[in-house]
């Protein structure tokens, strides 16, 4: 105690000693400022230069003298407008980067949700996949994914207007041009521009969100070597092609200007581009892998295989919901587009109604317990569904979209488990695939016509069926959803089949029963902890 108090007094003493020169300096500054102003008439040129005083309230910090000018303190009109433009792009770029950082953190959320919903004997393997998908996906996106997706997108409107991404491979059908893939920016070569780099970061973390979705649906039986090959291909081939069609100037984005279908396939932040792509890869991969040992009985009825950590899954869900404030509002690529507040509110409303609907549906309608795992799925389902329409719908629209997604995710999870008999340990297909599609269709129904003037080169705002926009926007959304299922379904089927032929997708039954941690990764996730085999083994009802 004596020791502690003496340390405390020494610290206080040190603080006093170090603060004395600061106080002295402040006083000296005040004096010299006075000295300069009184001396000013003697040197006329110095009249324009204001001496910056300490500004504790912050009211007067940032003024004319902060504008870059040939003659400091007296900027010309041109210099002022340059500064305004620079500031606008700076706000946009900063917004894009910071929201991108939030989306990057969603990788931690996915890791926790997926690992919490799987068994203790597989945690090192599930976590390892969630860690490595980030670098593997990024490498693929850097090598060619970014070039394929954005190589032909044209000028970066909100990020400085650089027009170097100008090379799209197109084909002509029915006298119209169909953009298929971009062809500029491989290894980020030839596009050395701050705006492009900001775009790369933001789009890279989006791609990694897609990439990490199948690791949940395919968990507890996927061979690590097969996963690594998938990880390199998802960011370089599977994801960017569909992404180009919607966001990179490809044919789905021009359905409006070419065929008068609304504004083309509109997907604000990625219900189809990101989530549905992940969900379709997940259902194809889980189907090819087959169910986990013990999931289905001889009579084809399913068994419950409880996850090992509800707390981990709930924390992961909150990390994802937090990251979504980057995902959706960030997709303006512009902090100066003040629609961001509407987008953020719509995003949180849908997450709330999604979770609420899911728990009530399990509890009252289905007659089960309220079910924490379905609450998590419900919240994520609401977030996935609002991702496409978040910028185009009213608060009421967002609440309804979330409400429907909460019911949809449960019914879809049961349908996939009990009718299709595809084993998805974490509900990734129901959350991302089914609700990704629902989000796009909801946009075609509920876009309220207050935003999106000129979207995809079509004049007027984005309007859905229920707001007098007719069915053309809805048709464009359905075409986009169908194209996603067909393209992603086929390419991922081919890739998984080829990997299977080459090295095999699935671990041996012995490895699966023992748990993947030691045979696949060399170390148990919970080293030194005795696992209870009875809580790991499902019993039929």
């Amino acid at each position: 105690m004596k020791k502690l108090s003496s340390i405390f007094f020494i610290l206080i003493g040190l603080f006093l000693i170090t603060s004395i020169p600061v106080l002295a300096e402040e006083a000296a500054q005040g004096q010299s400022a006075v000295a300069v102003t009184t001396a000013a008439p003697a040197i006329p040129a110095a009249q324009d230069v204001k001496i910056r005083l300490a500004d504790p309230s912050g009211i007067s910090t940032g003024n004319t003298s902060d504008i870059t000018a040939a003659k400091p303190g007296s900027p010309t009109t041109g210099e002022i407008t340059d500064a305004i433009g620079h500031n606008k792009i700076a706000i946009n770029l900063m917004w894009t980067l910071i929201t991108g950082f939030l989306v990057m953190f969603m990788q931690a959320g996915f890791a926790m949700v997926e690992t919490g919903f799987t068994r203790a004997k597989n945690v090192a393997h599930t976590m390892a996949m969630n860690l490595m998908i980030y670098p593997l996906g990024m490498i693929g996106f850097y090598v060619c994914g970014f070039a394929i997706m954005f190589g032909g997108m044209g000028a970066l409107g909100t990020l400085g207007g650089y027009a170097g991404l100008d090379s799209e491979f197109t084909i002509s059908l029915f006298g119209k041009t169909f953009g298929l893939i971009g062809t500029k920016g491989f290894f980020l070569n030839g596009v050395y521009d701050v705006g492009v780099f900001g775009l790369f970061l933001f789009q890279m973390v989006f791609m990694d969100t897609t990439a990490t979705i199948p690791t949940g649906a395919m968990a507890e039986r996927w061979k690590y070597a097969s996963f690594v090959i998938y990880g390199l291909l998802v960011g370089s081939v599977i994801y960017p092609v569909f992404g180009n069609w919607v966001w990179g100037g490809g044919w789905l984005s021009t359905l409006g200007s070419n065929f008068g279908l609304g504004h083309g396939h509109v997907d604000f932040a990625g219900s189809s581009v990101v989530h549905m792509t992940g969900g379709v890869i997940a259902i194809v991969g889980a189907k090819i892998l087959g169910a986990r040992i013990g999931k289905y009985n001889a009579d084809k009825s399913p068994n419950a295989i409880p996850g090992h950590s509800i707390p981990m899954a709930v924390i992961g869900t909150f990390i994802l919901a937090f990251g979504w404030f980057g995902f959706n509002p960030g997709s303006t690529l512009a902090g100066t587009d003040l629609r961001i507040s509407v987008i953020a509110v719509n995003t949180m409303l849908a997450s709330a109604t999604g979770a609420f609907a899911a728990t009530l549906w399990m509890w009252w309608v289905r007659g089960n317990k309220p079910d924490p795992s379905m609450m998590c799925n419900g919240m994520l389902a609401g977030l996935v569904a609002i991702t496409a329409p978040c910028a185009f719908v009213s608060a009421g629209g967002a609440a309804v979209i979330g409400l429907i997604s909460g019911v949809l995710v449960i019914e879809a999870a049961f349908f996939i488990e009990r009718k299709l008999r595809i084993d998805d340990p974490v509900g990734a297909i129901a959350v991302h695939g089914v609700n990704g599609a629902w989000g796009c269709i909801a946009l075609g129904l509920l876009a309220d016509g207050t935003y999106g003037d000129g979207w995809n080169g079509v004049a007027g705002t984005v309007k859905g069926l229920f707001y007098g926009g007719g069915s053309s926007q809805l048709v464009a959304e359905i075409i986009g959803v169908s194209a996603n299922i067909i393209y992603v379904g086929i390419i991922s089927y081919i890739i998984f089949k080829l990997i299977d032929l080459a090295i095999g997708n699935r671990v041996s039954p012995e490895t699966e029963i023992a748990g993947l941690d030691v045979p696949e990764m060399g170390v148990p996730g919970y080293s030194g902890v005795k696992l209870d085999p009875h809580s790991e083994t499902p019993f039929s009802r």
Partner: protein
Amino acid sequence: MKKIEAIIRPEKVDDVLAALEDAGYAGIMITEIKGHGKQKGITQQWRGSEFRISLLPKVKIEIVVKDADVAKITKTVINAAKTGNIGDGKIFIYPVDDAVRIRTDERGDVAI
């Protein structure tokens, strides 16, 4: 000489120990075990499906007592371990041939 073997709820261990101590019996053995009775475990729910946890954690208490004390000790354990709900456990009573105190070589009732 008899051995009383009681299978009880883990959360009742402290109550039973206290009751036995009050009754003057300090010599007991405890083992953490798993098992199920007629109900064959309990059901839980995960993602809308029920599943059975068939082996539940229980505690086995063993006490060796003089023949004259069997009824009293059995009653003591029952009073302390009972909740009236399914899963309270069981008591088994076995004959014991002999007992030896290792330190002194004493045998029979004095050794317990």
